[in-house]
């Protein structure tokens, strides 16, 4: 390996953009999260940990942080429960059916998140399709509250991140030699037992990568929680949005943003370590 001057020429624009447009803004936000809040100028002159103590100590913020983490766990579990049968089906289906099924998984992935969340609003609203259909069928007398609460956000986020889980589970399942499952069946193992003791453990790297990805994306999501949770049911990302755009308490917003970043980066780092352990040095 030998350094060539042309290399620096080719890399300078990208490095300049990353330093001036990503590293500097992040560093400055880290510094400003350590400044006190002043109603007049936005932030004061003295250094303080008050914003972090405020964010981690206030019951309201704790509720929002706890709710966000719980939301991440539920959405991840839902994506695993729905993703596994679909991934197994796609793996076993005939090639022609396989192609169509994969297209139906990829198409929603490429559709805009605002558009998909809007679709859920049409379905879940008090006078939306689902409520109207249930009322027309005489199953319920008053509309169910499917939106502007936890239920709506879970349904929306699960649909939005499910494609990632399925697309990561398919290769994980394909890596399992079919002979192993066949051997277990020959030895008279039941289907659930083969799934729990053979398929699941062998697919672990895919399950971990998919789960961490879905969890991190769910706790960072802004658009879907805002549209399906409404202005009052808040998660960390929507609270950060409000601190910056409505309350104009930038130091508190910055502190909350860093709490979210630390959770996300720690999980990704941990997942890479675990995945590397499972795949013996092959970076996931």
């Amino acid at each position, binding site marked *: 390996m030998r350094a060539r001057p042309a290399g620096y020429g080719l890399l300078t624009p990208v490095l300049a953009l990353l330093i001036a447009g990503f590293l500097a803004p992040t560093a400055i936000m880290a510094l400003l999260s350590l400044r006190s809040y002043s109603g007049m100028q936005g932030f004061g002159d003295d250094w303080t940990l008050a914003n972090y103590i405020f964010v981690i100590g206030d019951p309201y913020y704790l509720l929002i942080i706890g709710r966000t983490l719980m939301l991440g766990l539920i959405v991840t579990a839902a994506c695993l429960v729905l993703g596994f*049968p679909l991934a197994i089906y796609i793996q076993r289906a005939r090639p022609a059916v396989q192609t169509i099924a994969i297209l139906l998984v990829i198409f929603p992935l490429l559709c805009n998140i605002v558009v998909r969340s809007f679709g859920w609003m049409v379905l879940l609203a008090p006078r939306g399709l689902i409520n109207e259909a249930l009322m027309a069928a005489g199953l319920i007398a008053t509309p169910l509250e499917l939106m502007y609460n936890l239920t709506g956000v879970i349904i929306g986020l699960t649909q939005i991140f499910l494609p990632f889980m399925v697309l990561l589970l398919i290769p994980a399942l394909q890596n399992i030699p079919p002979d192993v499952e066949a051997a277990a069946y020959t030895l008279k193992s039941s289907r659930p037992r083969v799934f729990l003791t053979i398929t699941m453990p062998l697919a672990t790297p895919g399950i971990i990568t998919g789960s961490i990805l879905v969890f991190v994306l769910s706790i960072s999501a802004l658009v879907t929680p805002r549209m399906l949770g409404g202005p009052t049911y808040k998660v960390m990302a929507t609270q950060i949005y409000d601190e910056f755009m409505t309350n104009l308490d930038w130091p508190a917003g910055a502190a909350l943003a860093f709490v979210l970043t630390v959770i996300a980066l720690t999980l990704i780092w941990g997942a890479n370590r675990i995945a590397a352990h499972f795949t013996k040095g092959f970076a996931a």
Partner: protein
Amino acid sequence: MMARNPSWLLTLSAMAILLFMNAPTLVVLIASFSATEYLTIPPQGWTLDWFAEVLSDDGYIRAITTSLILASCATGLSLILGTAASYALHHRMVRGGDAILSLVMAPLVFPAVVIGVALLQYVSLLGLRGHFIILVLAHVLITLPYVVRSALSSLTGLNPQVEEAARVLGADGFTAFRLVTLPLLKPGLVAGGIFSFVTSLDNVPVTIFLLTPRQTTLPVKIFASVEHGVDPSIAAASSLMIAGTAIVLILAQRWVSFSRFF
């Protein structure tokens, strides 16, 4: 090998899950052609009025134009900068290549809303808020990982002797790159470019913090309109985005197979 066909229970669950995944898009498409304010199943009559309303609305036209110009500028710039950087990284022309690559990929693992607020603070402090170039650069930042990832994987699949042969035959470095390497990289760059274009077109969590009240992009406009309630013209605007995505995908298939996506 004992191939096992999916059982009927598995098939049925898979169909239900695929329906769940595509239901919101389907509903938006049906709602945008439905004659009634509120969608009913089956719809009571069909109309194109909502599309006429969107396409005659100055606000929507400006948002669509801004979105398309922004995505084109960001993708173009991202392709140029990303290809140059990938070339240098692939040929190990500088020290610390791994660290540089991690830095390029960092905006992908950072929560988007955090990048958004960090840029908002930074741009406000520098007094640059509202300049279109800031939006373009922010979008280059978030699309660069996709371009670099596909450019690097294409470069890895390339036979280095082809470019060396061009050099031996007297081509200078840039000519050899332009006439030999670049055409071979084209499928990878088209795939990266498409992903970059769609990413830029879709972005809300970074864009929304950098817009001034007079600017807007299509997804941000839809996002903001929803606060006033669900109405069929929002469905029509959304359908236009779905159609746009589908067209990009169909055009893309001429160069790239879908297997690239996973």
